[in-house]
């Protein structure tokens, strides 16, 4: 689909020629059962991306870590009228892709198939979302596989460092729950738990259906109404609670021991911002300067100038109510001290030197230039519409993206750094060989040690 190609007039010379970007047109409707439906046509290739987005995730796990995630995957194990084998066969035979999963705040069921197969596959998709079977034998197999994946993930520090970091920042609050659960918590989950979770959260007034791609709109509307119109729920829809705030009242270090580690993997940071924060767009630009691109300060120092690491970056991780910020890198064990020290020094430049006009203009151009490919495919657009529904992203944030980048000045950048980047009481996770890096860890705050091989992502109580 061809995007609007209006030239931005507000910008200075540096931004002339940058193309504007607006979200492609889409229809939205609320069915009488409360289901929100988004339809967006695209006709580059004869493919349709469908996703059901449910406002449920690890934040709803309570004491049963991994329940939302297991439920999201278990949806695919067959419906009340079609076995898992029949459904897998139907999708695979047509080159369709079926996937699902539960994240922190949203669960999705996704399908991607040829235009001509919508009549066959969309009904199966609708059955899975509304009447999954959670057949016992298949559920046990899935749970076993997921437990093994969790065990194996701990072989790779980079796969798990972020989960420790989140647990450290949010403590016992809902946002601290490990989205995939732990080996022990998954082992304790029963079929009845999964069924109850589905019953409680997978309901039309807590979900959106998103269809993006090559379809006839009249036929698709009709099909959606037929398949999803009868879906109903009893009682009031679940409401969102307070899922927690980042705890950063003193500098802390979690040192996760991996006794055969060749390197030290680390995260440093603190609180960030919510996905729908009005400063979301300008902060993308500022983070680009610090750690969001190859020539960013962090990568420039830790990789290019010093050769300490293959890469260093920083990012805001957004949630619906709040968020986190972190710098992340890794280095050979003997270089741990140098790399951590340089990461801190580089970060401090945000305040000590600030961002000059030239660097800011470069980051603005970069963020704008890399924006359109983020919404190039039907899957990407379906993901964005899902975030709009589940995380409250406003379409203004998308449509005004270019304008919000263009209007960012060095003065405002300075104010935003003060307001949003955590400077004091930094929180640190280090994964590596504890006996060799314990002393270094102590320089950055109160140290708590744990073994990577222990269950879960928390220190021993």
């Amino acid at each position, binding site marked *: *689909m*061809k*995007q609007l190609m209006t030239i931005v007039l507000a910008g200075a010379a540096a931004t002339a*020629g*940058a*193309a504007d*970007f*607006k*979200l*492609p*047109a*889409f229809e*939205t409707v609320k069915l*009488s059962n409360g289901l929100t439906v988004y339809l967006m046509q*695209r*006709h*580059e*290739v*004869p*493919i349709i991306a469908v996703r059901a987005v449910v406002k449920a995730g690890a934040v709803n796990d309570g004491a049963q870590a991994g329940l939302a995630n297991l439920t999201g995957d278990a949806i695919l194990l067959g419906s009340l009228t079609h076995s898992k084998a029949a459904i*897998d066969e139907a999708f*695979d*035979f*047509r*080159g*369709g892709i079926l996937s699902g999963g539960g994240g922190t705040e949203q669960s999705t069921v996704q399908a991607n198939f040829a235009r001509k197969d919508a009549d066959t596959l969309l009904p199966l998709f609708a059955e899975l979302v509304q009447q999954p079977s959670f057949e016992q034998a298949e559920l046990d*197999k899935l749970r*076993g*596989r997921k437990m*093994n994946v969790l*065990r*194996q993930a701990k*072989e*790779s*520090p980079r*796969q798990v460092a972020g989960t420790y970091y989140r647990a450290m920042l949010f403590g016992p609050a809902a946002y601290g729950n490990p989205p995939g659960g732990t080996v022990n918590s998954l082992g304790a989950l029963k079929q009845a738990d999964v069924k109850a979770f589905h019953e409680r959260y997978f309901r039309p007034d807590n979900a959106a259906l998103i269809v993006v791609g090559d379809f006839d709109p009249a036929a698709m509307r009709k099909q959606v*109404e037929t398949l999803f119109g009868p879906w109903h729920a009893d009682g009031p829809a679940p409401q969102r609670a307070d899922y927690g705030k980042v705890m950063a009242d003193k500098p802390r270090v979690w040192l996760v021991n991996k*006794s055969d*580690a*060749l*390197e030290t993997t680390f995260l440093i940071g603190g609180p960030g911002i919510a996905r729908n924060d009005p400063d979301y767009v300008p902060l993308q630009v500022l983070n680009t300067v610090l750690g969001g691109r190859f*020539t960013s300060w962090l990568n*420039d120092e830790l990789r*290019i100038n*010093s*050769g*300490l690491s*293959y890469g260093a970056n920083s990012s805001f991780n957004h949630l619906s109510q709040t968020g986190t910020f972190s710098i992340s890198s*890794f*280095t*050979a064990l003997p270089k741990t001290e140098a790399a951590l020290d340089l990461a801190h020094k580089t970060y401090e430049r945000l305040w000590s030197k600030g961002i000059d006009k030239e660097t800011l203009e*470069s980051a603005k*151009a*970069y963020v704008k*230039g*890399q924006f*359109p*490919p983020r919404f*190039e495919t039907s899957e990407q657009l379906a993901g964005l519409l899902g975030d709009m529904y589940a995380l409250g992203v406003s*379409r203004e944030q998308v449509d005004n993206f270019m304008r919000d980048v263009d209007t960012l000045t060095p003065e405002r950048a300075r104010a935003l750094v003060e307001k949003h980047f955590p400077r004091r009481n930094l929180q640190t996770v280090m994964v590596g060989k504890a006996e060799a890096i314990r002393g270094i860890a102590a320089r950055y705050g109160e140290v708590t040690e744990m073994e990577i091989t222990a269950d879960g992502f928390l220190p021993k109580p």
Partner: protein
Amino acid sequence: MKWRLLLAGAAYAAASYAQAALTADQVKSFTLPNGMKFIVLESSAIPNANMYTFWKVGSRNEAPGITGLSHFFEHMMFNGSKHYGPKQFDRTMEARGGANNAYTNSDVTVYQDWFPATALETVFKLEGDRIASLSIDPKMVESERGVVLSERSTGLENSNVRRLMQDLNSVAFTAHPYAIPTIGWESDIKAWTQKDLENYFRTYYAPNNAVAVIVGDVKVDNVKKLATRYFGGIPKRPAPPAVRTLEPEQTGERRLFIAKASAVAPNLMVAYKVPEAGHADYYALDVLQSLLADGKTSRLYKALVDTQISNSIAAFSTDGFDPGLLYFYTVSAGNVGVDKIEEALLAAIDSLIKDGVSDQELQKVKNAKLLNIYRAQETINGKALQLGNHEVFFGDYRKTFDAPAAYEKLTPADIQAVAAKYLKKSQRTVGVLAAKEE
């Protein structure tokens, strides 16, 4: 129930029925007098474009002492040239809204630039300058060695498959340089010299050894004009020396074991010798690979994962100029011994060789191949990769468009025949990575 249109207007009207898929006549190509070939596809779905430059050099062009040099070069190409000092390539490109990356494997080094279409000239200027006159600053070489050592160690730290594949290659190939790990051996990374680097650049970074693919919101005429201006003056050089070594025929199964104390479950890799890309059996082998390992209805998923002896199964192969490997990789479900997994994997392969495949099973894979071609064509990057890979490994970008027909004409007998021909005991290498040897 009421449907309402949230956003009307230009974008909506433009959204109506464009072409169904990419066709060969939309792609244009030209070759500069110095031998540098360009393939261009105008595609205005987003106001962006890319440039993928394929260099026919990779670790297969290396020898002991300079292992990893192709990959190191990939890094050095960003460290300064005549008109753009160290860091200036990236700084200039990013300030114009562009980003880039690069990858190296055994056969090729590929540079990828992604940018707003308006930055095309800047990108050509940058690329032209580093190809014409790269600086190999000894200071940058030293710092970059550290970066590559970190890249190597982080790969080994975080990825069992990487470790297993590296060591398996060195067992499967005894003579051919496919035995060399693309990242290089640690001692070589620490030891290569300034002269090695200069020789390498002169030998392989000749314009006649490159193919550039540009896809995006550009005009062919303008690409041609700018290509002539920024790449036309780079002198043609002698063709790089051919890789002479042929791998002798493997005459028996080979095995290796890697001990890694922190491995929580045994990893198994079984790899078979297969021919080069462009070989007549290429498409049948590609279908065979998918039939065995793609999706929950694949043979090996059913034999290994459904039965709960393995936790995952994957198959992969890379396009190469010389005969290479088709890999199967699986991780134990935990308490299951690797012998049992190997037995089940080989039994599934043997049953395919013995009993063949059904029409339905073959049709399933054909359908998936076609959809995956469409999926790749949803992005300008997918299109650039398809065109570039076909040009480099199959000799002509137009072969991209032959793929659907090549898959379509395959019969169950073709699949059974390639399975019998290549998935033989004498042609395989079996690798295990586990905490300790059983």
